């Protein structure tokens, strides 16, 4: 276990740098530097059991500059985006968005602990970019074939059930202005890379 100890100036520097990096990556104003390590987040988190560090623990590691440990942690990937921690945090820290920011950095550097969630996000987003809409059928089929072959026998009747109830289409819906959307996203990609 890594115990966070901000003792030497080097550690403090690395911590400040990483804290600033995560803050800059967060969509809203993260306020992560205001964390008082109270632990309300971990105590409220329905997913804490599955995490290798509680949110509080992860924030201590960020402050200690343990960049590697943080970016390899499964914590952001186990976050459900339930915002329980956010409404309970006495310091109004955007914990969920910090988790998103950490996932984005881990995606860029390929440090995620396993590729199931990143793959799912990748396929989902690829289809949304291509069609302008998400495509449940295509997404689920591809995801199960790649990652959950063993779950397929149970999933097939389920997919058929959805189909029978008219709840899943074989073909994706598409928007008209796909070119416009893609132009916006290409420019957004450039801007993201240039940050």
């Amino acid at each position, binding site marked *: 276990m890594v115990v966070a100890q901000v003792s030497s100036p080097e550690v403090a520097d690395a911590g400040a740098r990483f804290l600033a990096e995560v803050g800059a990556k967060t969509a809203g104003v993260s306020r992560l530097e205001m964390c008082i390590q109270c632990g309300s987040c971990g105590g409220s988190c329905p997913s804490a059991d599955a995490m290798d560090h509680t949110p509080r623990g992860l924030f201590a590691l960020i402050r200690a500059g343990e960049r590697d440990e943080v970016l390899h942690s499964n914590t952001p990937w186990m976050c459900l985006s339930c915002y329980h921690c956010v409404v309970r945090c006495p310091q109004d820290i955007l914990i969920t968005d910090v988790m998103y920011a950490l996932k984005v950095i881990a995606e860029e550097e390929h440090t995620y602990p396993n590729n199931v969630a990143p793959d799912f996000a990748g396929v989902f987003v690829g289809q949304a970019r291509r069609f302008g809409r998400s495509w449940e059928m295509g997404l689920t089929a591809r995801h199960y074939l790649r990652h959950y072959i063993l779950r397929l026998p149970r999933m097939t009747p389920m997919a058929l059930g959805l189909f029978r109830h008219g709840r899943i289409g074989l073909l994706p819906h598409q*928007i008209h202005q796909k070119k416009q959307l893609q132009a916006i996203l290409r420019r957004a990609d450039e801007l993201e890379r240039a940050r």
Partner: protein
Amino acid sequence: MTNYLYYPGCSMEGSGRSYRESLEGICEPLGITFEEINDWNCCGATEYVSLSTTPAYAMIARNLAIAAGEKKGTEPLVAACSACYLNLAKTDHYMGQQPALNARINDALGAGGLHYDPGTIKVRHLLEVILNDVGLDKVKAAVKKPLTGLKVAPYLGCMVPRPDVDGAYTNHEQPNDLDRLLRALGADVVDYPLKTECCGGHMTQVAPKVGLELIRRLVAEAEKREAVMMVTVCPMCQINIDAYQGEMNAMFHTHYKMPIVFFTQLMAVAFGVEPGKAGVGREYTNAKKTLVQALKAAPELTLAAAGVAPAARKPRPDKRALPMPRMADSEVEE
């Protein structure tokens, strides 16, 4: 008729189809109309924001820009899916909060000839619109077939009451909004303390053990509270609890059969729409039978409740016929 701009979201055309169908059935009685914004795109759910920040928010903002271009007065943009609602609301909020993010998003939107000024569009969730704009009096007045005796667990899920960027909720963990609405329909709303717990979102896809355990807790609690069905406001919650209940049962060796429907479906049915037309029956665990039974049982009871007709009293059984335990005479004397 009050008009609203409307963002349906992808699942309304697929797995959440019954949400859309039932929404159509409640507009007229409530005196509202929804105008779907033109050529809207996917909000990216919770996936895109986990992958890359600027493109994720630019994709969401395209919808806000389209809505801003179509708005004629002060109409808000209404979303029914919790994830869509939160993404749209958060994007508007963060663009206003972070000038750098705003600049990047508008730079990207510009590549498609669009622009969006944060604050132009107010994003709202359907449930909140019905409660605050339409009001419960109007809802009650529209009820033709009260859902008397139907024991429902009000399941709001997480992303509507939290993080609540616009401060629409006074209570983020135990709000009673959905309870009040369902009660207005005549339903018997059970106390459901897990009402804002998470259904796991995409966890059924990326970490099934975690996801299925969350579903188990929700369903087990609803059953423990003697609800005959759960009621939701979110297509993601619906599909998780409905379609994955079988896999969850297999994993935990349980036998739950808990139907889950959208609140709009119950509204439509209470307003007199035939259940099938409100999309009831598209669930895995069929809610139709339970619902139809409740409707059959309802009319007399509600006439009585409304004070129109006195409730027929069961004749009191003859006292002598009651198998009451009696004290032995000897005991009485002592």
